[in-house]
């Protein structure tokens, strides 16, 4: 049995964490916590950290003792510098909370890259965990909607960079912009994105701690995650009715199943495919064909099969990316945004110079 730690930072991280806890209750309604038991295979500890107490209050499936409020006057806003400072002031408190929960085999830290609290707490937190412990730590990072503005893009760019520099064992990307297709208003889009992410995380946790027909374990996961540019994403698909396992695998690797826009056959470097379902669906031939197709372009594919009586087949794929054109696009936009911000600042400064011009006639009287 694995000991797994999941931390959600900031509003986005908190909510996804709550969605994970909800999914663990079987994805049922609000009252599930009163009659249901979380179906984690492993010992899973979840911690939600935020400076905004209201965000913590919103959570429904995360125990109160697992919600850690870091008080800071007026919150952090989207200012990562303030966030970093607040973390520095409270890091021992946060670390104590983590360490009180015992030792772990693996940790996941969920955050948005663009906000204030999550994006600024996550890098130093991962850094500190990595310094103190030797279990792998993976960041699950949510990228913003592109239209959210230059400040968010700028934060995203710096945040991702910061996280990479912490010694993190891998970054799993989920892109709001890419997942926007799920539709609806922002709030329901968030909820369905969160549910998607949660479902994948839970499937992954379940797979890491399961008796498999073909073995993939935490070691394999680590191997996959250590490949490529340290950037990864997850695909998932559950077969409809009588969909054959072949199309199920394909769809998990397609944009319909991925959390981040990528052409896996082009960009993936290492991968892991976990197939779960009733034996009757699991045609080894089909599975082999699909895995071979992927490994032809990706290299080694770790595969695991979990037999579950009566379940329709579900496929989870974990892919590390060699390159991420979408990320490059994002950085390009981000750089533009940074420049734009700088120019804005410069203009403000200039405006100050205009003030100076006016101040030159202070004390003078117009002469007629």
């Amino acid at each position, binding site marked *: 049995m694995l000991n797994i730690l999941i931390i959600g930072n900031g509003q986005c991280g908190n909510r996804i964490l709550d969605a994970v806890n909800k999914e663990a209750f079987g994805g049922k309604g609000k009252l599930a*916590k*009163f009659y249901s038991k979380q179906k984690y295979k492993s010992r899973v500890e979840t911690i939600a950290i935020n400076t905004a107490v209201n965000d913590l209050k919103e959570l429904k499936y995360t*125990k*109160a003792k697992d919600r850690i409020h870091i008080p800071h006057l007026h919150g952090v806003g989207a200012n990562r510098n303030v966030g970093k400072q607040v973390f520095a002031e409270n890091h021992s408190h946060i670390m104590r909370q983590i360490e009180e929960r015992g030792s772990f085999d693996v940790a996941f830290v969920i955050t948005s890259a663009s906000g204030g609290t999550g994006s600024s707490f996550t890098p130093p937190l991962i850094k500190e965990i990595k310094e103190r412990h030797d279990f792998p730590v993976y960041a699950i990072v949510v990228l913003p909607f592109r239209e959210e503005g230059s400040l968010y893009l700028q934060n995203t760019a710096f945040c991702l960079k910061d996280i990479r520099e912490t010694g993190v064992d891998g970054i799993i990307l989920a892109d709001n912009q890419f997942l926007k297709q799920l539709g609806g208003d922002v709030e329901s889009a968030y909820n369905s994105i969160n549910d998607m992410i949660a479902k994948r995380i839970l499937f992954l946790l379940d797979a890491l701690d399961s008796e498999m027909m073909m073995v993939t374990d935490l070691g394999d996961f680590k191997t996959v995650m250590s490949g490529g540019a340290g950037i990864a994403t997850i695909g998932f698909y559950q077969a409809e009715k009588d969909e054959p396992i072949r199309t199920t695998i394909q769809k998990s690797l397609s944009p319909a199943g991925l959390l981040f826009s990528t052409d896996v056959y082009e960009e993936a470097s290492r991968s892991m495919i976990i197939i779960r379902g009733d034996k009757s669906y699991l045609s080894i031939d089909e599975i082999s064909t699909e895995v071979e197709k992927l490994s032809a372009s990706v290299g080694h594919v770790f595969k695991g099969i979990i037999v579950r009586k009566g379940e329709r087949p579900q496929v989870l794929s974990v892919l590390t990316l060699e390159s991420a054109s979408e990320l490059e696009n994002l950085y390009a936009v981000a750089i533009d945004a940074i420049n734009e911000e700088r120019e804005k600042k410069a203009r403000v400064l200039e405006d100050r110079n205009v003030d100076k011009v006016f101040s030159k006639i202070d004390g003078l009287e117009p002469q007629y």
Partner: protein
Amino acid sequence: MVQTKRMLVLIICIVLLSMMSAGNASAKQILYNSTIEDGDGYQINNYVIDVTDVFVDAETAVFKVYEKDDLKHDKMIGDDKSFSFEIEGEDVEVTLVSVGGGILPRVTVTITISDDDIVHTKGVVDGGHDKASFSGTPILEITKTVSPQEIAVGETARVTVSVTNAGDDDATGVRFSDSIPARFVLQESFVSETGKMSLDIGDSRQIFIYELKATESGTFTLDPTTATFSNEAGGDFPQASSNSPTLTVEGDSLEEAMKEAELQFTISLEPTSVQRTGFIDVKVHIKNTGDAPAEGVSMDILIPDGLEFEEGDDEIEVVGNVPKLYLSSFGLQQEKEISYRVKANSEGTYTITTQYSYQYDNAVDEDLQEVSDELTTTSIQVVKGQYDSLLEQPIYVYAIPLVLIIAIGGWIFYRHRQYRF
């Protein structure tokens, strides 16, 4: 020796004589048997027998009998001769036994009287009747009247006893005795002079005034009221008696005159068998079947444990947990129905006892008659209620769901606390 023999004979004679006189009341009783000197007298009550002349030689003496100062008899009799006269109807006989000489001549006489009861004063009087002191005779005239003389059973008649001293001397030590006749009840006594008293000459007094209540019809003669008394000199007189008035009582005997209030209580129950927590309606029907009205009718309804008084007519008042009823009067042939309702609280067989009491005037006795009794209903069966079998279930039948509810509640609370931030 010869002397003692004589003494014995004399004593025997005296004893025999006294026995004879005791045996025969009408026999002469010797008042005096001795000598009287010439010029002296012998007094019996107001009479004095004077010895006026003694002729020793002729063995003859002259006796003069005075009633006070009045000369009544003048007798000269010889030796061994007698003469008689009457005092207050009694015969007095004076016998000259012998005549003796000396400085003063004297006679030896024997004086007898047929009944010495009348004698209150006697003895030799020196100097004869002139020197005698006379005491009078109080005469008590007692009158007993009854009014009215005809009454009905249950009615009263007033008896008045009065006395007048019609004699010539004060009466002292007067004591009256009177008895209440049988078949009558002393209703009230107004005057009752039962102690010793005196009654001066000519005085009148009321001695008794009382009311008798007749209990039976008939003609009754009341016993006379009597009095014993003495005169001033202390001489006792024979008892005086009153007349004996008669009283006629008419009508029924008292038993027949007596009236009675008779309340009949009947209780009906509806139903007589009820499920637990059910109700029983009780109706008490009261009827006065007697011939007198009742008053102060009170009823205490004793509800046994297991039943409970629920509600009832307005007249029923619950005092100290006991439903009570009070009716100040209940007329002849009057009927009334009281209803109340009891609740069956626990299983069992019960009866309800009603204690009642009332009073009435029986038209004979002065006090009100009190009747008290109790009445018990037929039995009431209280059976298991519809849901009672539930109550009889063993504790776990309740305990399990209860524990479950508590456990679920506790769990929800625990979970709520666990997830409340």
